[in-house]
């Protein structure tokens, strides 16, 4: 094997000999430099392979033939091999990426470049602290040199700032090192460790200074202005190096010298880390410049890993796993994002929509953003998971909260950015992209995926994830260029196959999970059928939809909390992609993902608390014995964000209303059930005894009741049909929450009826209204009317939908009400019950509107030739209607097994006799009700038809206003602002107080960021002042 010293020799030899080529064709020196870096990569790679394959001990390399401490020694072990391989790998790709710059700027920059990487290699390998200083200086100076690759006005002044700042920092480091030498008599790191450097006061100050210098090299918030300027002004390829390569090497240095320090100082590092993580992410929120934003994010990520190093006493054996997964994610993603920034050359994040011109770049962008944020299946997901679990095992809840808060802030700006890229108008076109520029981010994107997979494998059997659905998503992403019809068929096939694999087993073993899986898969297939109505390629639709369904399936299949959370995040991201596809959905998608993430973090915290007591099995949730209220509250709130309960609902109306016609039912009828499922397993885990006296459930009950009221009331005042349905979903989910919060046998059976009904009728209604909207081209109900003549099938569908919704016999909605009121009385929740009852009455108001405004009355002029809704919508709609009919007539097919399932948990209140349900206060037979009402309906219909024949027809807008004809006659019709009267009386309830509250909160955060950013006044001298002040203040805090 080639010795590690040859890395140094080759780099130096190359750098020195490049001087011969100053006048030559620049391709020759470039080729030499490239080969040199390739060879360095090869050397480090073969060591990495040797350590991974043979598990051999680290080797020491002595220079000058003397043992340390007398000479400088290097160390090559597994850790060193990993890090130098990472550094040299990114060096190789950077060399490729910067080819044009090197060709334009000449040999000097090539020298600087290769010396930078040599410096970083030695920093990682050396075991001599002064040698560390020397090579640190080399890499610092080299970075300053590389800033000049970009011929920008500001590059000069930002280089000067960087010089001043790093000059002071290296001075501090030097003082620390020399004092360490004085107190310990050695410069050899191993000897310093064994001689207990903190023994004397002076010795500990010496270590403090060294430590501070290295921490400052990691650019802690707020002492990092000069680095941010460099990120902004340097070439993005250099930004990638500074963030990924230099940052990585410095973290390794910090890791290397942590044995110097004792426990209390770890807290100091952790505090610096968390301040950096939260502070820079806060500032990222109001940043519009892409490269500077990446700078903030880099600083933040390095802070996070610093935090992990600082928290290492709590993390036990998992410390390196956590630190490394977070680091590799930062490494891959940040380099990738900088590289993409260099390809598309857009300063403002608003203009990143040009990414859509190159789907590959868009996908890579998404991969990197998710990698940064710790989404599955990327390495950081597992890292963050373990971090939270370990902290929780050690009762460090405050740290968890701080980390999740920082992560949330990071998500805010990254998703804002991602949203811009997905949705903003494309203003200009990009020029042709060279292969040499796209290859590096492409390789890193692939590595990110592969690394995620192997991270999970590395974790062992307890962490098994079913990657099959994700593999299907990947395949459908790869064939995204083909026609939508084929992809649609493939997607349906894939879903059917997934159902075939999972449903029979669940039917045997776990009926409740079976129900939900059937809703997810069956509903998925039905809504996908509607997709045949779309023409063209529908780029990006199928990956998103399948991702969501893969997540939904994973939630049901999950045995452990990790699997659950994995699937939950997949589902969240997939649904986000679906929602944001809508025409005006940029802000709705944004608020959806923020609420979802906030909820997910609460879940994560709860899983952490649970893990500390009973481990990761979901079934063990019922065994927890401390922090019960906290864990259950966190879970409940987390799931309620997905159920859009009052207070957490503001994302829903826009998200559902603006979505595409076949997406609305997916995200409404199907997706919301994920939250319900989560809530359900939470309450099941509580057990009857806890549930009976639970204040939490009592509160949830009230929230459910109020959600139902506000949701229904708001639905009544909508002019937009889809928005009406969206608010109606909120209301319906309120009922469901209420029903489950009762935690009684009857309540739960009622809850299930609501779940199944809501799935069926909301799918029917959204599909039908969506199909109608596709035909008439408007969402506004008052712009429709009389469509019964053109679309009778749609009319019947909506009619059946609202009959089910409003709980009128004979359809299954009535069954829901029947169980519901029985449960109410037996539970004794009369006040809440009154609210719910009132809400139920209001539901009639909006149901009536759907029929009256859209289908009855006069046909509008421009709709005279409109056709019946597409057959591809009719098929799923009527399949669902048949389902509703069967469920109404034979409810016991489903409800009896559910009833049996629940009885052991909450005590039996209900027995079944064929299709008859018998409770304490009465019985109900769906089948007979069906027959009776059917007969009544036919009789009344016949009578109506008979009398209708005599009716006199009136012309449309047969009205005159003082001789003037109104410009928009539709708005004079009763269909417009139909419930103005009610609105006056009750409108105050639906005033957007909650929206305002959330808006104020986010405004406050943005303003805080705006104030804080003033510390970066751009003045190099001020930054120097910060450095000194940071050291002195920290000194007084620590000593």
């Amino acid at each position, binding site marked *: 094997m080639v010795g590690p010293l040859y890395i140094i020799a080759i780099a130096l030899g190359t750098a020195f000999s490049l001087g011969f080529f100053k006048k030559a064709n620049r391709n020759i020196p470039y080729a030499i430099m490239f080969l040199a870096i390739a060879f360095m990569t090869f050397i480090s790679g073969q060591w990495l392979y040797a350590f991974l394959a043979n598990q051999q001990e680290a080797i020491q390399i002595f220079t000058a033939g003397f043992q340390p401490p007398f000479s400088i020694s290097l160390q090559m072990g597994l850790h060193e091999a990993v890090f130098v391989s990472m550094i040299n790998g990114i060096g190789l790709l950077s060399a490729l990426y910067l080819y044009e710059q090197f060709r334009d700027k000449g040999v000097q920059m090539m020298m600087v470049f290769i010396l930078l990487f040599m410096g970083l290699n030695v920093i990682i390998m050396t075991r001599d602290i*002064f040698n560390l200083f*020397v090579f640190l*200086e080399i890499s610092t*100076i080299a970075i*300053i040199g590389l800033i000049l690759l970009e011929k920008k*006005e*500001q590059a*000069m*002044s*930002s*280089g*000067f*700032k960087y*010089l*001043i700042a790093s*000059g*002071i920092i*290296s*001075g501090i480091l*030097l*003082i620390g090192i*020399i*004092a360490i*030498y*004085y107190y310990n008599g050695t*410069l050899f790191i191993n000897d310093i460790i064994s001689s207990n450097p903190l023994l004397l006061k002076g010795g500990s100050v010496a270590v403090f200074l060294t430590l501070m210098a290295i921490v400052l090299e990691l650019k802690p918030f707020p002492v990092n*202005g000069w680095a*941010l*300027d460099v990120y*902004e*002004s340097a070439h993005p390829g250099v930004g990638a190096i500074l963030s990924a390569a230099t940052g990585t090497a410095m973290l390794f240095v910090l890791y290397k010298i942590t044995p110097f320090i004792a426990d209390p100082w770890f807290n100091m590092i952790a505090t610096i880390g968390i301040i950096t993580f939260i502070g820079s992410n806060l500032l990222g929120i109001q940043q519009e410049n892409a490269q500077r934003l990446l700078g903030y994010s880099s600083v933040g990520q390095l802070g996070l890993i610093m935090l992990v190093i600082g928290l290492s006493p709590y993390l036990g054996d998992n410390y390196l796993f956590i630190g490394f997964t977070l680091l590799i994610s930062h490494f891959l993603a940040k380099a990738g994002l900088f590289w993409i920034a260099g390809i598309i050359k857009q300063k403002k994040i608003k203009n990143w929509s040009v990414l859509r011109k190159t789907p590959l770049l868009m996908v890579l962008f998404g991969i990197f953003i998710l990698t940064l944020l710790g989404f599955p299946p990327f390495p950081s997901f597992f890292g963050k998971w373990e971090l939270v679990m370990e902290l929780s095992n050690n009762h460090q809840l405050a740290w968890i909260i701080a980390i999740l808060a920082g992560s949330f802030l990071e998500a805010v700006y990254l998703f804002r950015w991602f949203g811009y890229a997905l949705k903003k108008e494309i203003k200009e076109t990009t020029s042709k992209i060279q292969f040499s520029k796209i290859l590096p981010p492409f390789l890193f994107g692939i590595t990110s995926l592969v690394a995620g997979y192997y991270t999970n494998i590395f974790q062992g059997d307890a962490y098994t994830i079913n990657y099959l659905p994700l593999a299907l998503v990947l395949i459908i992403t790869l064939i995204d260029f083909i026609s939508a019809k084929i992809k649609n068929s493939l997607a349906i096939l894939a879903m059917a196959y997934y159902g075939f694999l999972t449903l029979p087993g669940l039917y045997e073993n776990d009926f409740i999970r079976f129900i939900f899986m059937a809703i997810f898969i069956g509903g998925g297939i039905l809504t996908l059928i509607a997709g045949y109505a779309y023409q063209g390629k529908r780029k990006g639709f199928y990956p998103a939809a399948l991702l969501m369904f893969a997540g939904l399936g994973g939630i049901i299949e999950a045995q452990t909390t990790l699997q659950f959370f994995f699937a939950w995040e997949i589902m969240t991201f997939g649904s986000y992609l679906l929602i944001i596809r809508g025409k005006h959905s940029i802000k709705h998608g944004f608020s959806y993902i923020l609420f979802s993430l906030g909820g997910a973090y609460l879940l994560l915290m709860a899983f952490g608390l649970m893990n500390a007591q009973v481990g990761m099995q979901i079934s063990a949730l019922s065994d927890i014995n401390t922090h019960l209220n906290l864990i259950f509250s966190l879970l409940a709130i987390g799931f309620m964000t997905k159920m859009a309960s009052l207070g957490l609902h503001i994302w829903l109306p826009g998200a559902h209303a603006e979505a595409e016609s076949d997406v609305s039912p997916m995200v409404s009828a199907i997706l919301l059930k994920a939250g319900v499922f989560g809530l359900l397993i939470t309450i099941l885990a509580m057990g009857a005894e806890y549930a009976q006296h639970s204040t939490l459930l009592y509160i949830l009950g009230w929230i459910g009741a109020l959600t139902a009221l506000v949701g229904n009331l708001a639905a009544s005042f909508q002019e937009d049909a889809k928005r009406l349905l969206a608010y109606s979903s909120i209301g319906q989910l309120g009922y469901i929450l209420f029903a489950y919060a009762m935690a009684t046998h009857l309540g739960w059976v009622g809850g299930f009826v609501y779940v199944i009904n809501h799935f069926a009728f909301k799918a029917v209604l959204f599909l039908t209204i969506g199909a109608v909207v596709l035909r008439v081209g408007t969402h506004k109900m008052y712009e429709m009317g009389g469509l019964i003549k053109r679309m009778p099938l749609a009319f019947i569908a909506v009619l059946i939908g609202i009959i089910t919704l409003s709980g009128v016999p004979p359809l299954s909605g009535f069954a829901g009400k029947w169980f519901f009121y029985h449960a109410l009385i037996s539970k004794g929740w009369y006040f809440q019950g009154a609210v719910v009852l009132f809400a139920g009455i209001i539901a009639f108001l909006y149901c009536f509107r759907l029929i009256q405004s859209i289908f009855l009355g006069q046909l509008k002029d421009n709709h005279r030739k409109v056709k019946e809704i597409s057959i591809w919508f009719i098929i799923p709609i009527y399949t669902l209607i048949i389902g509703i009919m069967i469920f109404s007539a034979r409810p016991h097919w489903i409800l009896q097994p559910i009833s049996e399932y629940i009885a052991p948990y909450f005590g039996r209140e209900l027995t079944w006799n064929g299709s008859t349900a018998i409770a304490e206060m009465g019985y109900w037979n769906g089948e007979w009700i069906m027959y009776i009402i059917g007969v009544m309906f036919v009789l009344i219909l016949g009578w109506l038809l008979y009398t209708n024949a005599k009716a006199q027809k009136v012309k449309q807008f047969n009205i005159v206003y003082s001789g003037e004809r109104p410009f928009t006659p539709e708005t004079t019709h009763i269909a417009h602002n139909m419930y103005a009267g009610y609105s006056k009386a009750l409108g105050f309830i639906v005033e957007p107080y909650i929206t305002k509250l959330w808006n104020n909160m986010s405004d406050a955060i943005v303003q805080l960021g705006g104030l804080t*950013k*003033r510390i*970066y*006044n*751009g*003045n*190099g*001298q001020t930054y*120097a*002042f910060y450095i*000194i002040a940071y050291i002195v203040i920290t000194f007084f805090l620590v000593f």
Partner: protein
Amino acid sequence: MENLSLEIVTLITGIALLLIGIWGLLTQKNLIKMVIGFALFDTGIHIIMVSIGYVKNRTAPILDQAVKTNQAAEKIVDPVPQALVLTAIVIGLGITALMLAFVLKMYQKKKSLEINNFNDLKW
């Protein structure tokens, strides 16, 4: 003042020089003066380094007629800080040269040596 031996005097001198350097770096608005401040700061550190290697009443670590090889351990001061300071001086030189080159260029661009005129990037 018996305590005030040579190494203490040089140490205090070094620290004083270092502080003067920082003061200059933080208060002077002129770029060149800032660079001078940095150079003072650096020099102060070098003096501190040398004084740390001093051993009372001993001579330079060079073996010649005055210091025989067999009694070197009793006669010479610590050679390590001297070697380190040599390296540190050269590094400081490199950084200072680079700073001056930057200043030169910045001046040529804006015809100003005021640090306050170079706040282009912020926030």
